[in-house]
């Protein structure tokens, strides 16, 4: 699996995509594969201020319940309400239709500190061993 080049990645397996002053956030394909079938998603309220690294949501799969950490700081401006009825979108299309939230970035430069696709793929390889 190759990871989209226009996304940035965290060690905790979230991705963020810069869209002007905003960032769209979701879980990576590796994360959804590890979690297994997702049955429930908890999302933050629009308007909530998130610190980088703060828990913004929870995903529950048949195996485990996991926190999701925000890759960057900012205010939540949109959440993917489709996931509440169709959490399986995260399994089916993790980098696309399975997005979770959009934030208004408080410091777009934070994204430069995250891994690009190449570095993330390397990180996964190391983790596999």
């Amino acid at each position: 699996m190759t990871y989209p080049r226009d996304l940035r990645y965290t060690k905790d397996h979230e991705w963020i995509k810069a869209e002007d002053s905003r960032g769209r956030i979701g879980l990576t394909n590796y994360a959804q594969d590890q979690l297994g079938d997702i049955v429930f998603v908890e999302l933050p309220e629009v308007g909530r201020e998130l610190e980088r690294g703060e828990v913004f949501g929870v995903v529950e799969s048949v195996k485990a319940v996991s926190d999701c950490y925000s890759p960057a700081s900012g205010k939540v401006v949109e959440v993917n309400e489709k996931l509440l009825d169709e959490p399986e979108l995260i399994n089916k299309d993790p980098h696309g239709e399975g997005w979770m939230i959009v934030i208004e970035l408080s410091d777009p430069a934070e994204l430069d500190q995250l891994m690009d696709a190449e570095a993330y793929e390397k990180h996964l390889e190391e983790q596999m061993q």
Partner: protein
Amino acid sequence: MKVVEPLIFEMSAPGRQAHSLPECDVPARPLDELLPAGMLRESPANLPEVSEVDLVRHFTRLSQLNHGVDTGFYPLGSCTMKYNPKVNEWVARLEGFVDLHPYMPEELVQGALKLLYDMERYLCEIGGLARVSMQPAAGAHGEATGLLIIRAYHQHRGQGHRKKIIIPDSAHGTNPASTTMCGYRTVEVKSDERGGVDLKDLERTLDDEVAGLMLTNPNTLGLFDENIHVISKMVHEAGGLLYYDGANANAVLGISRPADCGFDVVHFNLHKTFGTPHGGGGPGSGPVGVIEELVPYLPVPLVEYDGSRYYLNYDLPHSIGRMRSFYGNFNVVVKAYAYIRALGPEGLRRVSEDAVLNANYLMAKLKEYYWLPYDRICKHEFVLSGKRQKDRYGVRTMDIAKRLLDFGYHPPTVYFPLIVDEALMIEPTETESKETLDGFIDAMIQIAREAEEEPEKLHQAPHRTPVGRLDEVRASRFPNLRYRREE
């Protein structure tokens, strides 16, 4: 052939009944004269109508579909599914115990109070503790009790600003849950490559906001943290307390005492370590003990002895208060008391020695066939990974667990602890014979071979159970909890 038992509603036939009541000896009056209209049903309740023999057969057949320690091997890691000796049940059913009422005056329940008092002394000795409360109803309730004691201690010393509880990434999920319930914030500390607490990472988390650290030792990898004295020193120097999660105490009875390792608050699971039943056969019991300095904060009442009589002491001004109605799950304490008295100190030590021996025997036999991420002598349990089977043959741990059902075994704990990919956590307990262990080893080896040669068989397992592979996603998302009669 697979036989699926129908629902009792589906067995219903109009007018059939399983009771024959005597003639009513008071004048009968219509319901609407006895109850206000708002309390009456508009349509009759949809209750099944069956005969007594059909009723008995139905529930007997359902009970035969159950798997329990009395029907087979149950190596469910971290749950200590040991055999529950029947003599404990006999003792707990003595009429002097079952005919008690919690409101009886102290003079009439001296025997029960003595049992609680003696049991407290035994647990104090096993844990190296000053006092123990029998109130908590089970393990997680014990955690909540212990954390409230820690909070009361800090508040009493003007340290109420301490809001952090440190928990290793290998911990049971109940630890962070209890922490949150008690108004604390959880800070995770990583495990090192040997499976213990990473001391460098621990150092990072320590500051004057730390209220305590919760540790299961041996941990969920079945490994005893050899750095426990260093950890204890570090946490105490930062002003925090050490909480012992007794989930894995079955490995250390008569060998190491939590308080001697630096723990300040300890809970025991009587339903794991001390041979009382789990789950539906329970309830549980999670006594909490403390070192001398924390005694003032224990729940009330404590059982005391004044040299001639036993009594309940409510006079603890700094107590966190009551954690449960009356005196805890008293009958469970009676069973655990019987267990401790039957085994004695040498017997309890042998429990742990045999539990550790059994686990190491299984581990040594299976590590050739399954990846063992932490390859060192284990305590009472160990964690294999199904990663080799997954990467090479596309067979996942869930498939292996489902296939084990075909052999008549309860599967090990799967996908926990979270720090092991495709985890299979195996705890045989001390009560299993070598023959039983060998049977399980043979099944696991056969499954490893099937993963290589016929992976499809594992994907579709189980094959010999009344129902095959269930759709867990659908069961979680669209649970069907209510019977509706077809119109």
